[in-house]
Every structure is written in structure tokens, then in C-alpha cells.
């Protein structure tokens, strides 16, 4: 059974495509790790790392092989999975997903190296690998069904990571995390299925004209034979052609279900030019968008649905927090871009003001609440709420520049917040507390840690010259064209971010350390090794973001024109010229 299956898969060229490999390799690694007998902790770690690094290398090879001119989906693989429902293993990446795939590729091995689990290494590494496969799967999926499967599957490993290796209140946090996200995605499943039926109705509607043509042709043929209605013509050739016509009508009126993202997104262009009406029922599509938006809003998380995030972050083990903040929150924002703007452009435009409002509320709310936190990890968690608000603002400001900024910010937030969580984890490992008030003067005892923390923090604040600035700047510039006042308020969030992070830094690192804080060990070489690539990226992308922007921009430009073609939205002219694409680096430097 299994050999034949494998043979079939390799014959279909599925296994050999890099994207499939990148998705499947971590899952394979999880199986391998779980087959290694217990009690060999080091072996689990090494094997898991090998698989994670291998996946990372694969994603880097994708980056190398990516064609920056091509705005469409690259490295596509499209094979039938469940034929009756038109579900296929359709993967592909464009400039928007490329960097998220790369981010998932290298953040996981870093998180694995950074912290070793306190107990039970086998399931720990196995779950991390499953999580990696799921995350990459979400960013690569071009089939609604595959996307949903991956989107949902990442819940399980994260749940077990929090439950198994988290801190005191982990049971509550894990449950809350699982139930919140599952609730969101449950309705998304209904939305996905409803959308495929809606799409089928649209296709049938669009086919009506062709059906009418075929019917009239058939009527002509019948009339020429002097036949009426159900009579069968004598001439077998004519009978055959009539039967073929019937079959065609049958096919046109009963198309198969289709879960393909690209097909559904593009088929909405089918517009009857004479009446100006779209066969696609936008009224229903708006409800469907709400179902999608709920799932993504929980994941992001957007303002009123964010309450699971601080708990999950605080209770999760360090690696869990890094992945949660670095990669998993992006599932929501990426979902908004790919399955909001691209899949349902008209409803996205319709709901954009509401989402922008929620995003801006998130920016201010996250910043204000972060200021009041006593727990360092909770503070970073709330800062994520604020940063993700920026991304949402950028996406739903609907200009090329702002969306580009949002995409850049997704990647940069992954790096800088991931790094922040790693640093907080290091402090916790040494001091066994995250209480800001009991930490003091760490700069004296751990100067390197303090220096690294400073750099990462400044990146998170958005200091020009560091990576965090690029995304925020692009978002603000782009959004200013369409959402002026929101942008003004959001800019205040930047100031608040500086306030709470600097204040926290001051309390933790400055001053004279008391006895416990005085003899805290500094960063060791392993931790330095983990932080090094992140620091290099922080500086490099801050100074020279061009390679990244070059790859993102075509895809975003294409997305915006897709939105314009499918809705009454038109991008303000000045925003299309690519203002500030190259500027921020020079400005800041």
C-alpha cells in the first residue's frame, strides 16, 4: 500500500517539487523523531534540528531561485487530492508569501537551538516540527481546503507545547488559545464551503449565455431536420451531435466544485459587460468574508478578540512564544491579504474601514496596555498587538505602498519580536522571574545581553536604520493617502511604542543591580549564535531593504490591481508610483 502510494506520488512529480518538500519534510521529521526511543534526549534534538535546518535550507533555496520579475505564483505544484470535491494539493508562493516561508524556515531551528526543553524532549521536538510544517503549509497553500487544513493543524502542536512545557497557568492559557482560534476557524470552514458553492453558482450563471447559444444551435439543427422537441433524428451523425450538445449543456450547468484559490479569485472577473452585473453574488460573499475575517482576526489578533494572546504568550515556553509571535500571528495577517484582499476583493473593500478602525484601536490599545504591564513577557505580547495593528492598517489602507509595508512588517515583526521573546526567555532562565520590578541593573551584570536587547528593542520601536522602521514607514506613508486621520492616530502609536519599551528597558537594565541581579550570567556563546543571524538581519534590512522590496512589490502591485478590477475601488494615483520604496534606507542611515 505505502510503496505503491509513494511510487504514485513520485510519478506525479509531487514529492520532487521544492514547496511540497518544504511542507512535508518537517512532518516527516516529526515522525522520525517520534520513532526514536525515549531517553535519548541528545539524539532527538540533533535529528529534529537536522530536519528543521534542512527545511530552512530548502526555504532559502526558494529565496535564491525566486524570480523577482514574476509577480505571479512561482514553484507551483498542483495535484488532485480529493477529486470529487475539486480539492487539490495546490501550492505556490509569490513575493508576499516568500518571506513568510523563509521566516518559518529559519526561525524554527533558531528557536530549537536557543532553548532546550526542561523535560520530554521527544514530543517537544516532534510538535515543533509539526508546527513548522503547518506554518509553511499555510503560507504556500493555493487551495482553500489545503489552507484550512494547515491553518487548523497548527493549533494542535501549539496547544501541546503550551500545555506540556508552559508555565504555571498553562492549562488555562492553552485551552483559551485553542478554543478562541478553533472558534474562528470553525466558521471559516463554513465560509470556505459556502464560497465554493457560491463560486459554482457564479460559474453556472456565467455559462448561461453559452448554454443559450448551444440550445439555439441545436434548435436550428432540429428545425432543419423537420423535428420537434423530443423526437430523435434519423441521421445518426446529427443525433450524435445533438447528444454531444446535451452533454455540453449538462457539463456547463453542473460544474464540479472547486476549492482552488486562484480559480475562485480570478473567476470573479466573469462579468456580463452588457448589463454590468457580476454573476458572483457579492451580498453573500460579504457574509463569507466575515467568516474568514473572524478566523483571521482571532489569529492576528485584532482588538476585541486579542485576549487569548497575552495569556498564551506568557504561559508558553520560550520557543513557543517565539514561534507564536514570529510566525503564527502572521497566519492571520497573511490570511487577510491572501484570502481577504485577493480572494474576496469586493467585500474586503467594503469592510476595509471597519478593519482599519480595529487595527488602529489595536495600535493604541496595545501600546497603552503594554505600558501598564508588570510582566516583561506580557509587555512584549501587548506590543505585538500594537505592531499587528500596523500591519492591518497597512493591508486595509489598500495602497500598494501600505500593503507592501504591511508585508515587510510581517517579516520584520517576526524577527524583532521573536528576538525579544528569546531575550526575555534568557532573562527568565537566569532569574526565574519576568517581573519588571524585581529586575534591575542587568546592564552591569550582563552587558552583552543588554546591548543585544537594546538593538532589538530599537528595531521593535522602529528606529530608522533598523528593519522595524522600513515596514512602519511604508505603512504610514501608504495609508496616509487613503486613511489620513487613522494614520495620524497610528503615528501616535509609534511614539507610545518608544515610551513603553524604553521605560521597560530603563527599569530592567539601568540602575544599580541588587544581589540577585548582580551576579546574573551574561549571554553564552550558544545564545549568541542564535541571536547573531537575527541581529544581522535587523541591521541589514534596516539599511538595505531593497532586495526584499524588489521581490515583494510586483506581487503587491498585482494584488492591488486585482482589487481594483474586482471592485469599485481605485487606488489614488500618487500611491502607485512607488513613493519611498528606496527612500527609507537612505533616510534612516
Amino acid at each position, binding site marked *: 500500500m505505502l510503496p505503491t502510494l509513494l511510487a504514485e506520488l513520485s510519478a506525479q512529480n509531487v514529492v520532487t517539487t521544492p514547496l511540497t518538500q518544504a511542507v512535508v519534510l518537517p512532518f516527516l521529521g516529526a515522525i522520525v523523531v517520534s520513532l526514536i526511543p525515549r531517553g535519548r534526549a541528545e539524539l532527538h534534538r540533533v535529528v529534529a534540528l537536522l530536519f528543521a535546518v534542512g527545511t530552512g535550507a530548502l526555504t532559502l533555496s526558494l529565496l535564491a531561485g525566486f524570480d523577482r520579475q514574476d509577480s505571479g505564483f512561482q514553484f507551483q505544484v498542483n495535484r488532485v487530492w480529493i477529486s470529487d470535491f475539486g480539492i487539490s494539493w495546490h501550492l505556490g508562493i509569490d513575493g508576499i508569501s516568500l518571506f513568510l516561508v523563509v521566516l518559518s524556515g529559519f526561525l524554527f531551528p533558531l528557536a530549537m537551538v536557543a532553548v532546550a526543553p526542561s523535560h520530554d524532549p521527544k514530543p517537544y521536538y516532534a510538535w515543533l516540527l509539526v508546527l513548522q510544517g503547518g506554518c509553511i503549509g499555510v503560507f504556500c497553500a493555493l487551495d482553500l481546503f489545503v489552507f484550512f487544513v494547515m491553518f*487548523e493543524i497548527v493549533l*494542535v502542536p501549539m496547544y501541546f507545547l503550551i500545555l506540556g512545557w508552559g508555565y504555571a497557568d498553562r*492549562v488555562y492559557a492553552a485551552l483559551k488559545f485553542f*478554543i478562541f482560534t478553533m*472558534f474562528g476557524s*470553525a466558521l471559516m*470552514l463554513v465560509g470556505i*464551503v459556502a464560497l465554493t*458553492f457560491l463560486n459554482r453558482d457564479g460559474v453556472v450563471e456565467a455559462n448561461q449565455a453559452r448554454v443559450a447559444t448551444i440550445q439555439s444551435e441545436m434548435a436550428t439543427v432540429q428545425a432543419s431536420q423537420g423535428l420537434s422537441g423530443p423526437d430523435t433524428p434519423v441521421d445518426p451523425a446529427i443525433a450524435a451531435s445533438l447528444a454531444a450538445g446535451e452533454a455540453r449543456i449538462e457539463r456547463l450547468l453542473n460544474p464540479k466544485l472547486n476549492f482552488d484559490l486562484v480559480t475562485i479569485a480570478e473567476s470573479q472577473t466573469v462579468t456580463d459587460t452588457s448589463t454590468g452585473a457580476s454573476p458572483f453574488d457579492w451580498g453573500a460573499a460579504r457574509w463569507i468574508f466575515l467568516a474568514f475575517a473572524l478566523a483571521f482576526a482571532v489569529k492576528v489578533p485584532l482588538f476585541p478578540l486579542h485576549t487569548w494572546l497575552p495569556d498564551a504568550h506568557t504561559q508558553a515556553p520560550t520557543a513557543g512564544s517565539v514561534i507564536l509571535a514570529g510566525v503564527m500571528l502572521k497566519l492571520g495577517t497573511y490570511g487577510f491579504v491572501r484570502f481577504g484582499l485577493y480572494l474576496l476583493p469586493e467585500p474586503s473593500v467594503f469592510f476595509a474601514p471597519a478593519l482599519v478602525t480595529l487595527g488602529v484601536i489595536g495600535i493604541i490599545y496595545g501600546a497603552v496596555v503594554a505600558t501598564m504591564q508588570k510582566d516583561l513577557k506580557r509587555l512584549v505580547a501587548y506590543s505585538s498587538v500594537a505592531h499587528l495593528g500596523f500591519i492591518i492598517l497597512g493591508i486595509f489602507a489598500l495602497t500598494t505602498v501600505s500593503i507592501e509595508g504591511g508585508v515587510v512588517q510581517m517579516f520584520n515583526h517576526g524577527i524583532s519580536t521573536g528576538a525579544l521573546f528569546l531575550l526575555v526567555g534568557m532573562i527568565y532562565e537566569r532569574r526565574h522571574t519576568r517581573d519588571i520590578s524585581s529586575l534591575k541593573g542587568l546592564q552591569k551584570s550582563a552587558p552583552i545581553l543588554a546591548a543585544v536587547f537594546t538593538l532589538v528593542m530599537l528595531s521593535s520601536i522602529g528606529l530608522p536604520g533598523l528593519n522595524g522602521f522600513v515596514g512602519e514607514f511604508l505603512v504610514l506613508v501608504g495609508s496616509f493617502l487613503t486613511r489620513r486621520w487613522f494614520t495620524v492616530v497610528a503615528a501616535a502609536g509609534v511614539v507610545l511604542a518608544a515610551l513603553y519599551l524604553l521605560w521597560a528597558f530603563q527599569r530592567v537594565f539601568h540602575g544599580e543591580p541588587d544581589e540577585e541581579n548582580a551576579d546574573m550570567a551574561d549571554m553564552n556563546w550558544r545564545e549568541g549564535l542564535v541571536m547573531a543571524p537575527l541581529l544581522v538581519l535587523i541591521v541589514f534590512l534596516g539599511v538595505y531593504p531593497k532586495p526584499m522590496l524588489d521581490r515583494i512589490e510586483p506581487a503587491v502591485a498585482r494584488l492591488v490591481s486585482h482589487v481594483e478590477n474586482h471592485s469599485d475601488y481605485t487606488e489614488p494615483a500618487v500611491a502607485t508610483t512607488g513613493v519611498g520604496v528606496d527612500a527609507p534606507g537612505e533616510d534612516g542611515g
Partner: protein
Amino acid sequence: MLASLWQQLSDSPVPIDSVDLAWAGLAPVMILIGGALLILAVDSLVPRRLRPGSYALATVLLAAGAMVAAVPLWQRVQDAERGPFATAAGAIMVDGFSVFATFVILSAVILAALSFDGWLRREEMDGAEPYVLMLLSASGGVMMASANDLIVMFLGLEILSIAVYVLAAMHLRKITSQEAGVKYFVLGAFSSAFFLYGIALIYGGTGSTNLVRIATYLSATVLGDSGLVLAGLALLLVGFGFKVAAAPFHFWAPDVYQGAPTPSVAWMASGVKVAGFAGLLRVFYLAFSTYRLDWQPVIFVLAVLTMLVGSVLAVVQTDVKRMLAYSSINHAGFILVAVQAATAAGVQAALFYLAAYTFMVAGSFGVIAVVSRKGDIGTSLDDYRGLSRDRPVVAFAFALLLLAQAGVPLTSGFFAKFYVITAAIEAGSSTLAIIAMITAVISSYVYLRIIVAMYGAGDDVPAPRTIPLPAAAGLALVISLTVTMSVGVFPGTLASLAERATPVLIPESDPGAVDPSGVPPGP
């Protein structure tokens, strides 16, 4: 007087038209009944006790044999030229639907028998009777799935139920088991009476108990007053609703599941439910599809109630068996959502769900049977604390089965829910689909609580204890887990089997299927 009676009888020998019996079509049932008799005979004739496990092995082999006998049937009914057929004067229908249900029921028998083996030995109850009763019960289930006559359906239901009443009350030293049996018996007899009364009313309304003849009659005749038929249909629904534990006929389920021996519950939750739904689908789709618009809203309400009861009330439970009892009510609600669609996709979804659910639930109760202690106690949530340390593999398998029940992707439970949702949306019941998914989230909380108990016990972990894992129970766990996970990745095979089992019930989708009348449907 007697003399003249004798005279008259001997004067006129009345020729009886012999009935055409397709023995091959009845083979699975015959193997089950014959096997039960054989085990009974061996048990009473052999002077010494046989080696422990022989009866379980025999039961598994019999069920497997019945499956083997069903394979040519499946090929025959799928054959375009031969197709489905009725036998025994139209009382039994052998078609894709019945053969599919037969396979699922037999799988449940195998899993429950494997679970029974170690359990009986632990409870020092080694004997043949549970296996005999389960085989008889399964024969009743197969009869229900293939009944083409309401009387056969009723008898199948009764055989199924009577054996299960006894299986529930089997643990003679445990008072809750006795209580469960009595409770199940009293309520079950009550529902059987409803069912029988329903048959009588339908016979009064249509003049037949044969499903195809009822369908033909109803599609050809416009009834001036359909009250009789509708009342009969409602009573049948009560009977079926009781068997599948649909709210508001679910009250017995938590108590009975909690008190009854765990392997019996594995059978009750899987095989009995499958048979109940098979009967429900056959009666409502085949005989009363013309009354679709009348029964759809009723099933809609039942489905909503069942799903809500099954998910919300499960949240407050502290006993794992009770939790899973409520969750099985929730599953029944999901299947009712598929039934409510009244389309081919609905039948397919229901069959897929039943098949996937059988393995999940039988596996789950198999774990409970293993984890509980002698006397069939130790099923509260606290007893699962630290299971991930004491029996990591069992805990992990249980966690996977629970996640499958929650509908997490890459498990069969996800596809089961997906197909149901798809069928519901296609039939225009998006509201139902939304309610279904919300209840799925609520019940996932229940499964997570069990997983939390196993994995997140924290510092208050009880002292380690050894939990023996009988080989047969381990095998059952492996089987159910393998099916659950492999169907979760490649659902195509099971889905296409379920699809090929549907056309009998939905004549219009396949002109080659048994079309009782060809007359356009009535009002």
C-alpha cells in the same frame, strides 16, 4: 367439528409458492447468527473452559468472515448489469447502502470484541455470552440496514436492542450496570412501542409495510389526508431518535453509558448508532422522500437540539464516560445535519461520518476500558491525571482519537465534519452548518479537558500506577487509530465507497438504481 376440520384440511392441499431466497445476499446475517449459535453450543458442550480469548478470537473471525461474504455482494450490487436486488419476497434489500452499513457494523463488532477480551478477564467474567449477544445484536443491526419492510426493520431493531439491554446490565456485581440495563430496557421498550405504533399508522395510511411499495404508493397517490402517514412517520422518528440518542430522546444515554460495561458502550456508541441511522436513512429517504418537505424541518430542529445538548451539557461533566456519552450525542446531531439535507451528498456525508465515527468512538471507549480499574471504576477525569506518564502511547493514541472527534484536520473526523457541512450548505442550510460548527467548538473544549488531564496534570500528579494493556485491546487501538489517521490524510477511498453506496436511496441521481415507480413525485 374437529373431524370435519381435519377433513377439509386434508381435502384441499394448498400449494405454497416457495419464496425466492438469495442466500448469498443473506450470508452476512446468517454467518453472524450461525456463529452465535455455534459459540453457544461449544460453550455449553465443552466440559472445560476454553483458553481465554478463544471466544473473542472466534467473534473477530466470524465478523471478518461476514465481511468476506459481503465483499462479493458489494461487487455484485456495484455491477452495472446486475445491480442491487431484493430478496425474500421483497423483505430484504441488498444494495450498496446495506452492504456499506454492514461493513461498518462488522468493524464495530471486531473493535468491541477486541475490547471485551481483556476487560472480561480483568472483571473475571470470562464467558461466551457477551460475544453471543453482540453477534446477535449485530445481526439485528445488519437486518435494519438491509430491511425493505418495516416489520423486518422492527424485528431487527428489537434483536439489536434486546441484546444490548443485556450487554448493558451484564456486570452483575455492579449496581450501576444493573441500573443502566433496566433504564435502557424500560425506555427502549417504550420507544419500540412508539415505533410499532408508527408502523401500524403507516400501514393504515398506505396499505403496506414494504418500503418500496410505500414509496410507489405515495408518489402515485395524492393523499387527501396525510395525517395518518405523518403521525406514523413522527412515531418512527421517535423510535429511531431513541436508538441513535438524538435529543430530546437522549436522556438514557449518559446514565447508560456511564453504568454499562465499557466495551458494551463501545458497541452501543458505534454499532447500535450506525444501525439506527442506517434504518432512519432507509425509511426516510427511500419510502418517504415525497414527504421530504414535511420531515426536513423536524429533523432540522432535532439536529440543532441534539448538537446543543451534546456539546453544552458535556462541558459540565466530570466523568469521562459521561463526557463521551454527550459527545456521541453531539455526533448524532452532526449526522442528523447530513440527514436533513435530503440529498445524495447528505447520504454520502452521513455514511462517511458513521464509518469514521465508528472507529473513533470504539477506539476511545477501548481506551477507557483499559484505563479503568477492576470493577469497571475509575472513569472520572481525575483518574486520567498523569496518564501521559504512566502509559504515554495509550495517552497519545487517546489524545489523537479525541482530536479526531473534535474534527482537527488530518484525522477522519475532520473530513466527516467537512462532508456534513458541505452537504448542508449545498442543501441551503447554512444556518445549520454554522450552528454545527459552533457546537463542534464547544465540544472540542470537552475533549481538551480530557487531554489536559492526561498531559497537563502539573504538580498534583497522583502516584504512578501500572495500567495493563491487553494485547487485544492494543490491537483494537491500533486498528482504530490507523483508520482514523489514514482516512484523515487520504479520505478519497472511503468517500467514494460512501458515494457508491448512496444512489439506491436517491433514485433521481442514478437512473440505473432501483426506481420504484417512475411516477413523478406527488405534492
